[in-house]
């Protein structure tokens, strides 16, 4: 198409050929005048419009201002020819600013193209949306893009592009995408046949899942399954192998995605994942062929190590990883060293034992002097993370030595880290004071105010330290050039504790005064005012130098700075009061200890970063730092999910965050205990999926509560059957999923929601297959373990693609009575125990109406069936009335042990009533079983 536009080619050739800028400008002016004329005259056909708009675009790309042609570009978009449409879109994306008014005119054309059957049009429109990405456009079109992504008729490259377009829109305007609402639908595409689509969708899911962990939880299984298929079963198209590594980009994304989630409890998933990680690590042991292959493998390996660390720091995998990492940090390649150090920092940030890392301490310290600054940074991070009480002196010493030669860009961070480490791992206060003062005198300008505030706080709060600190500060101040921060520390500490050392030779009040005052002329006003405060404290404790101090106040009374002047005047007045006045002593009493505070330094270090990019899943620092962070994160997540309190909660934490910087920081426990946060956290609803309801479904469910197998759910597409077996507190449940239609059900996902995982655990025996062939049935086995008494039934959620995306949630017939075992009791035994348990509260009793059979007889068989179906042993010959039922059973739980339960059912034909009594050693069990049985026996309302 471009070749046929001779005018354009000529124009470009002319401009290329222009020897000087002036000629080029001339040519462009001429062309633009021509175009203006043509546009003004109107009556252009599509070809001409296309040609002129193309010329305008070229001119614009060259950097000239373009003021015409926007309308023509908009018109071109609605053209039916591809080449015209393409130029139109190009013009729109290039010429128009994202808030341009013209874009409103384009939205409808774009929507039309999104709806079009031609995938080329779809792609052009998607490109335009992603490139422009204005908020108005996003709001108007996000639904259409999403529809294109999920539509089963979309080509795979349309899917790819729409996934990436959504990602782009999400990053720019996260609020326009109902992420949680679309979660299942988007995740289901992770099962697409085309790996390219999967890569794109995974990128999207990664971005969305970061902010909506719970809504996207299903992707965990999908990711594990996909990894398993890629790495272990080698199930991928040949085109997706990059130097024989199966789609490394996808692998890396999946591994990263898994790190956003807490480690799964499901043993099946865990073992699969373990297998995958093991394989990845083994693959890397193979000798590598070339650089690209190497790069691809390393990319996956580092991500896999990251995941392994995330999952469990004590697993043997991490041991292997540590060995590998040790090899990497002394690698010849800068990139590998960088990644090695970074991942090792991750390990150090998570692991319980730093031993394997400490072995390489020497190498790491050497890395501080690497020729590449980014490697040096990572080495610093790692040293910071791996520091503990044992090696703190060595590491801090090394960092201090390096600080003098470090890059300026790195110094501030280094200072903060040294200060934090020194405080955290100080063995003795002396060492702490020495180190920090060394730090202040060495780093000077790079020391933030927080550092010296902290020293002062600690010295004041630690009585044994005060004399020593005063001496050391004095010695440091003797250096010919001292940094202002040091003068501040000196001023404060000598003012408070100068009298403690005043009697020793060399530290006399006069000497202290001269030393400090000699520094004051080089300081800014705020430091000088601090020094004035020091002097007034000295007036109190050192009467011998009072004349000199008064002299200084006198002089400062005339300075221009208001703050200094005010202080000087007030202090002068205070100091000039008669000697017997107690005012001065009262004012200058020793500072009371500060209330314990968390260091403001950490807050400074962990400044917030951007919003929707792929975040790190850990922070630098020791294990506790990461644990803290996770706790806070969970808290904020809880806030996030509750939409009402969203803004408010965010604000309050924001404010607190800024306070932390202002040294009025609060401890983490206070932080999380803010009433606002709690009140928002409390109404957090149980996010169990809502099961489908219907008379049939209830009937099927009720039936299954007292029988071992049967149909659980059925509609036009699927049938769900259940078969179960229980033994003590352990059970197995087989779910039969039948596809009733003649097309395969794809992206088949089954998840179990257990409201109280402490009491009941339900896990899949293996990862369920993602496709069910037409008119076939698959079986999925569930392992069930009852740990404690539970009252709510687990919910099975099935979602699949059959044309559209469908989701069905069904209650699983797992109730407490399934874990009952028979007991054989004689009549005497029974009554003895019955009496032993006694009446309420351990008895639960209810009287309720019952149905009679068609012959108006008691439905005794049903009663018997229900009671024994609930795994009670029906004891005959105990009650003389044959209509009455007496039964006993024992509940087996793995945590709470066994609970006995006795039952009496006394129906009355005349009254159509029935009395059900349960006695159990646990009152909860009794009432729960009563509820279950009554529900089955009670008369159906007419």
């Amino acid at each position, binding site marked *: 198409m471009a070749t046929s536009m001779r005018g354009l080619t000529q124009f470009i050739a002319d401009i290329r050929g222009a020897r*000087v800028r002036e000629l080029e400008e001339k040519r462009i*002016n001429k062309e633009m*005048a021509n175009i*203006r*004329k043509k546009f*003004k005259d109107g009556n252009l056909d599509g070809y001409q419009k296309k040609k002129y708009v193309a010329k305008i675009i070229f001119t614009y790309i060259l950097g000239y201002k373009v*003021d*015409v042609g926007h309308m023509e570009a908009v018109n071109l978009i609605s053209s039916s020819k591809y080449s015209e449409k393409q130029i139109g879109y190009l013009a729109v994306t290039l010429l128009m600013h994202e808030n341009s008014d*013209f874009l409103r005119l384009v939205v409808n054309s774009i929507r039309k193209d999104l709806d079009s059957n031609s995938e080329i049009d779809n792609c052009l429109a998607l490109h335009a949306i992603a490139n422009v990405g204005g908020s108005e456009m996003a709001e108007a079109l996000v639904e259409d893009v999403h529809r294109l992504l999920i539509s089963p008729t979309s080509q795979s490259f349309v899917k790819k592009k729409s996934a990436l377009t959504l990602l782009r829109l999400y990053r720019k305007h996260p609020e326009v995408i109902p992420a949680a609402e679309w979660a299942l639908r988007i995740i289901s595409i992770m099962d697409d046949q085309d790996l390219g689509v999967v890569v794109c969708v995974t990128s999207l899911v990664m971005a969305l899942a970061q902010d909506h962990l719970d809504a996207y939880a299903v992707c965990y299984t999908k990711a594990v399954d996909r990894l398993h298929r890629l790495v272990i079963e080698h199930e991928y198209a040949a085109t997706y192998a990059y130097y024989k590594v199966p789609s490394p980009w996808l692998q890396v994304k999946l591994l990263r995605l898994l790190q956003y989630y807490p480690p799964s409890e499901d043993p099946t998933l865990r073992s699969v994942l373990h297998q995958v990680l093991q394989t990845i690590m083994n693959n890397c042991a193979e000798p590598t062929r070339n650089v690209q292959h190497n790069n691809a493998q390393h990319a996956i390996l580092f991500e896999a190590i990251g995941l392994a660390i995330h999952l469990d720091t004590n697993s043997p995998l991490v041991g292997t990883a540590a060995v590998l990492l040790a090899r990497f940090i002394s690698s010849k390649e800068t990139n590998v060293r960088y990644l090695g150090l970074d991942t090792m920092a991750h390990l150090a940030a998570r692991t319980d034992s730093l031993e394997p890392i400490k072995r390489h301490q020497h190498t790491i310290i050497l890395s501080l002097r690497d020729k590449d600054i980014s490697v040096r940074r990572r080495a610093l991070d790692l040293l910071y993370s791996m520091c503990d009480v044992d090696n703190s002196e060595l590491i801090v010493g090394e960092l201090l030595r390096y600080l003098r030669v470090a890059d300026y860009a790195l110094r501030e961070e280094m200072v903060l880290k040294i200060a934090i480490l020194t405080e955290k791992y100080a063995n003795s206060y002396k060492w702490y004071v020495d180190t920090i003062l060394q730090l202040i005198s060495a780093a000077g300008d790079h020391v933030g105010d927080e550092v010296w505030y902290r020293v002062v706080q600690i010295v004041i709060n630690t009585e044994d330290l005060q004399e020593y600190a005063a001496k050391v500060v004095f010695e440091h101040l003797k250096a010919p050039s001292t940094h202002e921060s040091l003068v501040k520390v000196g001023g404060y500490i000598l003012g408070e504790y100068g009298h403690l050392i005043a009697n020793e030779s060399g530290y006399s009040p006069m000497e202290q005064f001269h030393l400090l005052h000699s520094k004051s002329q080089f300081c800014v006003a705020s430091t000088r005012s601090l020094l004035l405060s020091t002097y007034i404290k000295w007036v109190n404790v050192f009467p011998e130098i009072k004349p000199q101090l008064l002299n200084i106040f006198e002089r400062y009374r005339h300075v221009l700075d208001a703050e200094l002047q005010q202080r000087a005047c007030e202090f002068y007045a205070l100091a000039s009061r008669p000697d017997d006045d107690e005012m001065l002593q009262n004012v200058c009493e020793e500072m009371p200890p500060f209330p314990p505070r968390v260091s403001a330094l950490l807050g400074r270090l962990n400044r917030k970063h951007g919003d929707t990019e792929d975040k790190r899943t850990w922070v630098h620092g020791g294990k506790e730092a990461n644990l803290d962070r996770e706790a806070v994160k969970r808290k904020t997540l809880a806030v996030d999910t509750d939409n009402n309190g969203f803004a408010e909660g965010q604000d309050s934490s924001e404010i607190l965050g800024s306070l932390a910087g202002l040294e009025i920081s609060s401890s983490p426990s206070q932080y999380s205990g803010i009433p606002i946060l709690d009140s928002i956290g409390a109404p957090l609803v149980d996010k169990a999926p809502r099961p489908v309801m219907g008379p049939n479904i209830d009937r099927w469910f009720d039936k299954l509560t007292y029988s071992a197998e049967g149909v659980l759910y059925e509609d036009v597409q699927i049938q769900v059957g259940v078969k179960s077996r229980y033994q003590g507190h352990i059970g197995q449940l087989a779910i039969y999923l039948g596809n009733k239609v003649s097309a395969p059900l794809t992206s088949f996902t089954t998840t179990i929601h257990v409201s109280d995982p402490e009491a009941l655990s339900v896990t899949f025996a293996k990862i369920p297959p993602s496709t069910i062939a037409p008119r076939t049935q698959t079986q999925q086995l569930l392992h069930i373990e009852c740990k404690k008494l539970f009252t709510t039934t687990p919910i099975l959620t099935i979602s699949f693609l059959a044309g559209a995306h469908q989701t069905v949630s069904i209650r699983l017939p797992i109730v407490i009575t399934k874990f009952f075992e028979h007991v054989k009791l004689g009549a005497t035994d029974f009554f003895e125990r019955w009496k032993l348990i006694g009446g309420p509260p351990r008895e639960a009793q209810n009287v309720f109406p019952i149905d009679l059979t068609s012959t108006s007889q008691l439905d005794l068989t049903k009663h018997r069936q229900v009671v024994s179906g609930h795994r009670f042993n029906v004891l005959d010959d105990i009650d003389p009335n044959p209509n009455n039922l007496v039964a006993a059973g024992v509940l087996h739980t793995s945590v709470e042990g066994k609970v006995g339960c006795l039952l009496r059912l006394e129906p009355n034909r005349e009254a159509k009533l029935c009395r059900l009594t349960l006695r159990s050693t646990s009152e909860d069990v009794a009432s729960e079983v009563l509820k279950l049985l009554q529900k089955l026996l009670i008369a159906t309302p007419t």
Partner: protein
Amino acid sequence: MISAFFIFNQKGEVLISRLYRTDFKRSIADVFRIQVVSNSDVRSPIITLGSTSFFHVRINNLYVVAVTKTNANAALVFEFCYRFIIICKSYFGKIDEESIKNNFVLIYELIDEINDFGYPQNSEIDTLKSYITTESVVSTVNAAEESSKITSQATGATSWRRGDVKYKKNEAFVDVIEVVNLSMSAKGNVLRADVDGHIQMRAYLSGTPECKFGLNDKLVIDNNEKGTTDAVELDDCRFHQCVRLNDFDATRTISFIPPDGEFELMRYRSTSNVKLPLKIMPTVTEIGTTQVQYVITAKTNFNNKLSATNVVLRIPTPLNTTTVDCKVANGKAKYVPGENVVVWKIPRIQGGQEVTLTATASLTSMTHRQVWARPPIDVDFQVLMFTASGLIVRFLKVFEKGNYQSVKWVRYLTKANGTYQIRF
């Protein structure tokens, strides 16, 4: 002093490179290329990077660059650069990339001659031409004699003139050429008006003539003859090296021994009482957003016997002009879209005459409505035998031992090119 001398082309490629001193390597040229040539923001002709200063002059898409590490006299360095340009022009007509490439041997010879170890040397064109020639030199017997003559001239008291010049007819031509600059506000106030003039002389005089030159310089006239009013105030004057400056300083007489042939005797500037030869009265009205109407009248402001020739008015149009419909009685007017102007060319306007243009420009709609900046109208013209400053050559006297009769011609020309601007 000048440590290195370069010529770059538009793209920053080095055409000529001469290092006079050892304190630079040739790679310093790259610094200039990166910092100046490829950096479009640089406007200043002097760039100092560290202790290195680059002085550059742009001419015809060439950069003539002098580099120094010392605190050199900037005026001197620029004079050297401009001098070089003049020399080149006189040697091969024009200076551009093509001519530099064609004559690079000659140029190296020249820049070695006019500069020694960074110190500028004799740059008198006539002198240079006597020993740096473009023709092949036939080695003859009198070569030695010739070279000794050159030596004696170059080291003598009048290095710019040989002693043995002989003409049958002794003639001297004086051209007074003035360039008038004007910038006039939309209300018709003169914001700036001044004249850059130079006096070009061609002397074909035998022997070693002593010349005296008289102008209607106000200072001279006020001192000597009272009553005359048409004196001119010259703001600053610059003379050829042959003029005796101490005489000028003492009595403001211009006396000199001219070099043989053509040279620029003096340059001057005048800012007071500038007579504007052409008066322009523009009326430009914007009608709505789609039309602009022009009525431009030009009136000559000098004697009827004289005439302005080659008058060109460049009348700017808005940037979104599509077509311009022009009506003129004199000359031709045409819309030039490449420069966004209407060009109105009038070959000749007699003194006292008045010419008018009426035009309508139609505009197209724009995406972002911007107010039109209304750049000024630009006028080019030439008027012979007229000086805008009012300067007149009162006398030129030639004294020579031979006491021959000499013929003197004086010609005046006032012109404007590119800096005669009227806002509207």
